[in-house]
């Protein structure tokens, strides 16, 4: 999409605050092995806006989105109805296939139908989409970056689905007064800019923002290139394992994701090796949702002060 075309959403570079959510999305792009991001937060915290803006910044279009109104045929694939009526069997790819190699975004992921969740779990864990419906039999290898947003007041996710998200971020409403005012001002300016664009005029406000987006995209692409060459030492790896063990995270994905995310973070910072600080930044979002019965407050899984102290203690030995 060219920079002159109007977008319905706020450009990524104009999003104020929510730094941890932005970081998680960027890390998942830099290192797809991380396996996706779950953004959980109260109503009105800009969860959906950040994800869509991120996709628009990276790819120039909205992400492949799985809505809660989706039927099976659109998720897995199905016959094109219009063509069927003309006796032509034209198979239509489902959303999972459309998202291959890209981001698959599920808004309100905790409201998704159970049987759709089961389908996604199967594909995410095996990497294979098996289609056996409506006379069609096929099997495809798929991989996508699963991004989900949810309001925990409406219920939590099944642990199996929670585990498929590499990183989990809790977003909170902005508390800093100046930032809150800046958010309102930015939205009001964007409202005006949209009006100008709709009237066929240009908006310097938007153009400047899109230019900033372009620069960020280049930085992320560069980091993605660099990440394979970022070194991670044995002590750092041991610290990741020790932290995961002490926190009681289930399975091995906690330490794997923490290590991959730390590496991506180092690449983003332009460093050639992972430091303790990189681990400190990513460990909470890589591990907090993997503990059995985590720390739930009003439905939010939280990283506590005790967890922070434990992390400091373990990393102090590196």
């Amino acid at each position, binding site marked *: 999409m060219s920079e002159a075309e109007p977008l319905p959403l706020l450009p990524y570079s104009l999003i104020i605050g929510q730094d941890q959510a932005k970081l998680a999305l960027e890390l998942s792009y830099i290192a797809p092995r991380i396996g996706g991001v779950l953004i959980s937060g109260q109503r009105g915290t800009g969860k959906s806006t950040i994800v869509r803006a991120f996709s628009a910044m990276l790819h120039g279009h909205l992400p492949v989105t799985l809505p809660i109104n989706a039927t*099976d045929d659109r998720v897995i694939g199905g016959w094109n109805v219009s063509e069927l009526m003309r006796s032509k069997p034209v198979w239509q790819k489902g959303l999972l296939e459309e998202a291959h190699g890209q981001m698959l975004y599920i808004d309100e992921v905790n409201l998704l139908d159970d049987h759709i969740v089961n389908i996604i779990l199967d594909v995410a864990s095996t990497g294979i989409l098996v289609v056996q419906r409506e006379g069609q039999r096929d099997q495809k290898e798929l991989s996508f970056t699963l991004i989900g947003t949810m309001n925990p007041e409406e*219920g939590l996710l099944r642990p199996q689905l929670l585990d498929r998200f590499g990183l989990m971020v809790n977003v909170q409403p902005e508390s800093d007064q100046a930032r809150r005012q800046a958010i*309102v001002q930015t939205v009001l300016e964007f409202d005006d800019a949209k009006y100008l664009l709709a009237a066929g005029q240009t908006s310097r406000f938007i153009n400047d923002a899109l230019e900033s987006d372009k620069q960020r995209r280049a930085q992320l692409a560069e980091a993605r290139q660099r990440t394979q060459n970022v070194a991670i030492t044995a002590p750092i790896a041991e610290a990741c394992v020790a932290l995961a063990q002490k926190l009681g995270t289930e399975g091995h994905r906690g330490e794997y994701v923490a290590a991959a995310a730390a590496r991506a973070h180092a690449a983003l910072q332009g460093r050639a090796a992972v430091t303790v600080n990189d681990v400190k930044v990513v460990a909470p979002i890589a591990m907090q949702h993997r503990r059995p019965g985590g720390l739930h407050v009003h439905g939010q899984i939280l990283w506590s002060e005790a967890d922070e102290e434990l992390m400091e203690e373990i990393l102090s030995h590196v």
Partner: protein
Amino acid sequence: MSNSLDGLPQPLLNALACAALHPGLRSLLFLDATYNNLQRAAAIFVQMMRLATGRAVESATISAADTDDTLWGNVSLRANESGPSVAWQPGLLAKNDSADGAAPYRVIVIPDLSTLNIAAARACTVIVGADVAVLDRHGRHMEWQPNFCWVASCPSEHLGRVSTHLLDRFALRINGQSLGASRDAAHLLDWIAHDADRQAAPDLSVIARRIRAAAALRPIMTPEARTQLGVYLANARLRFTRREITFGRLAVSHARLDTSITVTAEHVDAAARMLGLNGTIQERDTPRVPKRARPSSGRSRDAASIDDEILNAPSSSSMDDGPPRDELKVNRTSDVTSFAPTALSVDPYPEDTAIVERDHASLQFPFPHTKVTAARGQIVGLERTTSARDLSIVGTILEAAKFQSIRRARGGNTPNPKTGLLFSASDLRKYRRAMVSDYLLVMVIDFTSIDDSAWDYALLPYLRWAYVKRAAVCVIQVGAAGARSELRAESVFERRVHSPRIERALESAAGKSSPLAHGLDLALQTLRHQMQHGDSVVRQAMVVVLSDGRGNVPLSASRMSLVIPPVMRQGIEDSLQVARELSVLRNVQSVLLNPQPAQYPRLPAELAHALNAELVNIPLRQDMPAETYDWDERGGVARGSA
């Protein structure tokens, strides 16, 4: 300019106009509006939208029967010259494919937000106020910028039943009682002269000029306005980002309606007054879920006083209503938001303090815990099936219809290939239904008789039964403090035992009188309805009566809300009579929990006998061993013996 239009106060009209002027404000929640008044507001808003946008505007209503298919869309049969065919039928919330760039706006009316079914609540949560909508159903993919406007109503006492996730999507809350038409002879004569439900289209010519002039304006915010915005953002009621943005947009709309090229501090003040913001108030973190029931206080002001204040508000031809700016102090020490005459409602965000009455995860489809042996419960959609149980004939036919051409082309095996549908097992569709309960627990709690007994512990085995059986629960409060009438019992019905309303109902204090007969009568009516009426019948019920049998309100007094003395023993006799009627119901197991009163100690046994109930003595709280009470032990069992 007149104070009102067609009986509607000026501040309300200004609010509707402001909302029409900005896409981000076009979601209005009216509190306590009747359906007719809501329709009236929607009609006016439609006209204002036409003026503001210059485009066609239509309206539609979400009903209690709407499903995912009717809301988002489905394949349906169409009759063509060449025969029937299957085509995509867009739902109420789908993008209108026939429009291209100039699609009509659609004002969606929701008569009662608190009674939306789960399919509609989920749909509204994802689309109200959304910048982007996505639809993927039955082969159809759509991504578009929705052009919907929302006009909804909700009783303020039921706000706690609505998901806050959904409520947050509505920009403005407006007192729906201000929508009522003037109560005067002229309106009465007009009503007599015309059809009962017909309402004359309001004449918007005065405000129309302002809306048209405002539509083209894009005022710039002055530095003073920015500063004033920051002052109000310190108000704890605006602690959610959407509310802050709404406030900013409302200030801009005010400026446009004022035909001003700048957004000034006065416009910011006007927006604050409209929302009812007046300084910083004590912050509340979460909605209250009290441990002890609070007396029902209803609304803090009655409708008449609210109407009077709004109607008597000063009006002018500009939006500079209210005191001069230097007199408007931001009171940082006040812990109460005072009700300003031009505010849209008493409380800008009443959901913050509404008692939580909604289920946890209320927007998730319930997981079927019980094995359903028959098709019951409201239909909320369709899903694939591999059996013929609860088959949706039409849904199955529509699915099969999609494949007729290709199946025939491949040579179907049918006695008459030219007629009749060719089915495959994959075509089968069954109904997806809302959960219903096979079991029901009815608890008649006489709060005047519990005193020092461990009554709450005595209830636990039955609550546990209800939990295990996924039973619906009905609590009938007899003699509870805060009851609307001392002469009447009240009932609370919920589909699950884990309900905040059930918890509140069980935590009442004792009142002054004991309408036990009426309580038992409510239990009888509930059981008859739940076990004998409609499709969603309960198969088995348990009735738990906790009472000393000393009902002192005759049943007739409860029904007429009038005591005709002398009462004497009439209340007790009426209770026994209703108990006998309860005893003949089939598939009902009854238990009487005896608080072992010192006075008239034989009455509970007499009541148990009439109920044909098991008599269970409740121990005194002082006699209970600390933390070691065995829920299965009961202090003596006697079956209905006097």
